[in-house]
């Protein structure tokens, strides 16, 4: 006998409510729950990662100078950039197009040659200042190439920021990453722990023997974890805004949507690990194994482009990379929906695949 979707949903919400009620009753857990984000932020708020040599930074060139006056400079610039390997140059026709490409993350900066060239300040470099390490690197690379090409002093180069409102600190770069990381960790590890605990103490039998869908059990638990993750994200957001001068520009609803969508996929991974592992400890350890590389490779702490090329491929296979990327664009660059379509699509596919595997695996693991 199949129950209706409405009933399944109600059953999941009841399980979610029960899980949260149980959670709220443990003072120790509540304390660690609140302390974790505080410690994380306090730690990294004062810790700035050092910068290394970054290569192949994508940058656009827009030549607006009339009568081909800038073409020699642009061609020499492209040649110098490609021979040093520091920049990957593409050509755009308008400033608006270049700015949009920065916001949607295709390029990290744009070099604009204005019609007044070669007057002072007629060459403008727009940098993605939400990514300070990369912006600094870009400024240095472009500056050194241009000074070798143009003998004129003072240099015609003028640097602009894509988000002049944003105080560009390393921390502002990291804050959205922490928000995403917190939600994901809660979804993955928290879920594994609660399912394994109910199996070990025996209460899972009580849920299994009730006339409810198997999927209601796991979705209910996932919802409870999502609520917890979002609460922790809220703590982080409040902290970084109140104490570390981070400003959030994006649409709160879009931010929430990205957090939920990203969380779903990781909840799926958590479910799979929980179903496959025999006990709580094994599940937790398996997930730790997945979490650690994610923290360092997904662009939470360091920009992905700063990684060695082969690790960049690994990073691009990690869904958290896309979630953090989308969050950063939303929160700092005030990007719209269209600018984060790519990462959103990736997250959607990842969530569908992960949950599509997870739910049957869970059902099989609990019924055998």
């Amino acid at each position, binding site marked *: *006998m199949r*129950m209706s979707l409405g*009933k399944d949903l109600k*059953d999941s919400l*009841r399980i979610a409510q*029960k899980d949260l*009620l*149980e959670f709220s*009753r*443990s003072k120790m857990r509540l304390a660690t729950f609140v302390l974790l984000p505080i410690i994380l932020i306090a730690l990294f708020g004062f810790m700035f990662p050092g910068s290394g040599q970054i290569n192949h930074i994508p940058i656009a060139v827009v030549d607006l100078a009339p009568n081909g006056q800038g073409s020699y400079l642009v061609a020499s610039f492209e040649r110098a950039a490609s021979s040093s390997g520091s920049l990957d140059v593409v050509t755009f026709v308008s400033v608006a197009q270049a700015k949009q490409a920065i916001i949607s993350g295709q390029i990290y900066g744009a070099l604009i040659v204005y019609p007044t060239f070669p007057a002072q300040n007629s060459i403008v470099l727009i940098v993605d200042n939400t990514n300070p390490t990369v912006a600094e690197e870009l400024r240095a690379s472009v500056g050194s190439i241009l000074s070798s090409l143009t003998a004129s002093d003072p240099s015609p180069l003028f640097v602009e920021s894509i988000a002049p409102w944003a105080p560009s600190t390393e921390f502002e770069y990291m804050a959205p990453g922490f928000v995403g990381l917190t939600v994901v960790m809660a979804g993955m590890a928290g879920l594994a722990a609660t399912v394994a605990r109910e199996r070990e*103490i*025996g*209460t899972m*039998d*009580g*849920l*299994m*023997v*009730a*006339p*409810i869908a198997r999927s209601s059990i796991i979705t209910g638990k996932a919802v409870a974890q999502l609520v917890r993750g979002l609460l922790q994200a809220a703590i982080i957001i409040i902290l970084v805004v109140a104490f570390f001068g981070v400003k959030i520009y994006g649409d709160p609803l879009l931010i929430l949507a990205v957090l939920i969508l990203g969380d779903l996929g990781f909840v799926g991974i958590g479910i799979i690990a929980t179903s496959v592992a025999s006990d709580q400890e094994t599940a937790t350890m398996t997930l730790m194994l997945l979490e650690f590389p994610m923290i360092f490779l997904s662009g939470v702490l360091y920009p992905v482009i700063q990684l060695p090329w082969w690790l960049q491929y690994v990073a691009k296979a990690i869904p958290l990379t896309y979630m953090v990327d989308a969050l950063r664009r939303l929160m700092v660059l005030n990007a719209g929906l269209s600018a984060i379509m790519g990462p959103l699509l990736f997250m959607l596919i990842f969530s569908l695949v992960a949950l599509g595997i997870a739910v049957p695996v869970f059902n099989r693991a609990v*019924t*055998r």
Partner: protein
Amino acid sequence: MALEDGSIVAKGLTKVFQGGFVAVDHVSFEIKDGELFGLLGPNGAGKSTTMRMLTTLLRPTEGDAFIGRHSVKHEPDRVRLLIGLVADKLIVYDRLTARENLRFFGRLYGMGGEKLEERIDELLDEVNLSDFADARVGTFSTGMRQRLNLVRALLHNPKVLFLDEPTLGLDPQTTRFIKDLIVQLHQSGITIVLTTHEMPLAEELSERLAIIDHGKILTIGEPKKLEEDNGVSNLEELFLKLTGRQLRDSLGKEKAGAPRLVRGRRREG
């Protein structure tokens, strides 16, 4: 009378676990509506696996079982509405109060509102837990928790109650209390399947019983009749006679060790 009945029919029920271990091997039996049935056997005999298949927690590898004529394989949700389970581990949440526990499970059975609250009050009263309705279960003694666990299984008025070692680790008072409750439930017409290692309890309560070992039913019938047929005076002797060899061997080893200890102590004294 209700339309659903609490009869149980197992037909060739079999469970083979991964790795090929046959826990239950083509077991067939019938339990009548309203019967109090004992399911006995040594550890690892297949009792719990049988019970988990009957309660839809494990899917039979072969064969099927019917609770109130509903297949545990094909209509698990119908079966779940008919049964209550007191498993070997307690199904109560320590961080919730007694009332919150019952409310949560009641809602999973589609109950709610005033009716559920009344049922909770009534059941808590029945097991003398009314004064602790709003205390967290974590603060309860083992006996109190088992009493709550029992009424949790009864919330939705099941037709069949499965009791897996309901008196394990309880003091004599609680054991007595639970025994009386089982008798009372039996009198109210509910079918009860009881597994226990306490032979006197099984002998006193069961109308009929089955002794299982190595996944097969060794004998099934009324306890007195089975004892007569086998020429033994009580259930414990019957149990040992039928399942005994291995058990006696391991007991024998322990006995061989015991006198040495006793002698040693004597010398010291």
